[in-house]
């Protein structure tokens, strides 16, 4: 069943566009062109940040961090190998993508650790960036409880991701 969700979305969207008299094929091409532009903005940061991530892995810094984080992470059942991802996810989206992809390739995309990293990436956001964009635009200076509440949501995401990676 799950195998058909994505192909069916493709078909349904195209058929509905046809029904509405929209030029679906042309829209796909337009979107793909936007995708290329988006990619062009991601690639430079991916190259620079993956360099840092590979340096951290090769130097053994990840190993040190994992050992420090292990007691807390084990208590919550979160794989300690995702420690760096958990730390960087709320701060920088591109760094999280670099760290996450490195974890997936090191431990295997289909391993529990790799799946946990993928689910974490897919179900959390760059919290501090989002807060600064929205509060900056709305001229808010006193943020009250928004940071603890948003970080609690992130933590819930990391915790549940570790569970669902094993269950589904």
């Amino acid at each position: 069943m799950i195998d058909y969700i994505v192909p069916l979305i493709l078909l349904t969207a195209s058929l509905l566009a046809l029904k509405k008299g929209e030029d679906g094929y042309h829209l796909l091409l337009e979107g793909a062109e936007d995708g290329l532009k988006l990619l062009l903005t991601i690639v430079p940061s991916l190259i620079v940040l993956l360099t840092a991530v590979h340096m951290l892995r090769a130097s053994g810094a990840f190993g040190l961090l994992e050992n420090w984080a292990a007691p807390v992470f084990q208590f919550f059942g979160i794989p300690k190998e995702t420690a760096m991802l958990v730390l960087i996810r709320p701060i920088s989206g591109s760094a999280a993508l670099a760290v996450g992809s490195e974890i997936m390739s090191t431990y295997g995309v289909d391993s529990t650790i790799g799946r946990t990293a993928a689910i974490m990436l897919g179900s959390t956001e760059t919290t501090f960036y989002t807060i600064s964009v929205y509060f900056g635009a709305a001229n808010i200076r006193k943020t009250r409880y928004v940071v603890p509440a948003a970080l609690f949501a992130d933590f819930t995401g990391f915790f549940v991701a570790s569970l669902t990676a094993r269950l589904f």
Partner: protein
Amino acid sequence: MLMTWIWCGLVLCAIGAAMYNGTGAALSAAVATGAQAGVQLAISMAGAICLWSGVGRLLEKIGATGWLSRLLRPVLHRIFPSTKENPALAGHLSGNICANLLGLGNAATPMGIRAARELAKSDTANDELCRLIVLNTASIQLIPANVAAVRAALGCQTPFDILPAVWVTSLCSAGLGLCAAWALGRVWKRD
């Protein structure tokens, strides 16, 4: 500037750990392999990202955000009571949430900012504004296309098999985040 600090911190940690562990040779080799891995990943992700942003454009044009917002209206009224008196705010808010659901990041942020400006009454964040931020930081996405693209790029045969797990996880983090915001809003009255 933030990224400069992060970058310096990461490189400093790598060099420090290499000195501590005696892994200098591996460290200098990693400088080259890391940059190469960045290009490889980007190229293998390119196809999926372009295709999905095409599908995103299709969904936008056929009015998928409209149907979703009709479905979500009852929930929206509960989380943001002031949408009952302010239809323009309701429009911006549901537009923001639905664009997020469909993974249309470029469309979601401007609508979210309009909603935030409408909600902001002073320079202090009110409860509804905090809930909007929590919903946006919890990232509820129906199709996490970028992550699926990374997985496919790394050789995964079934890149979308994480969908149910991502849905459950997003729902839990958004739901519990909103609960935390609600509970904190009752005790955290000032600043």
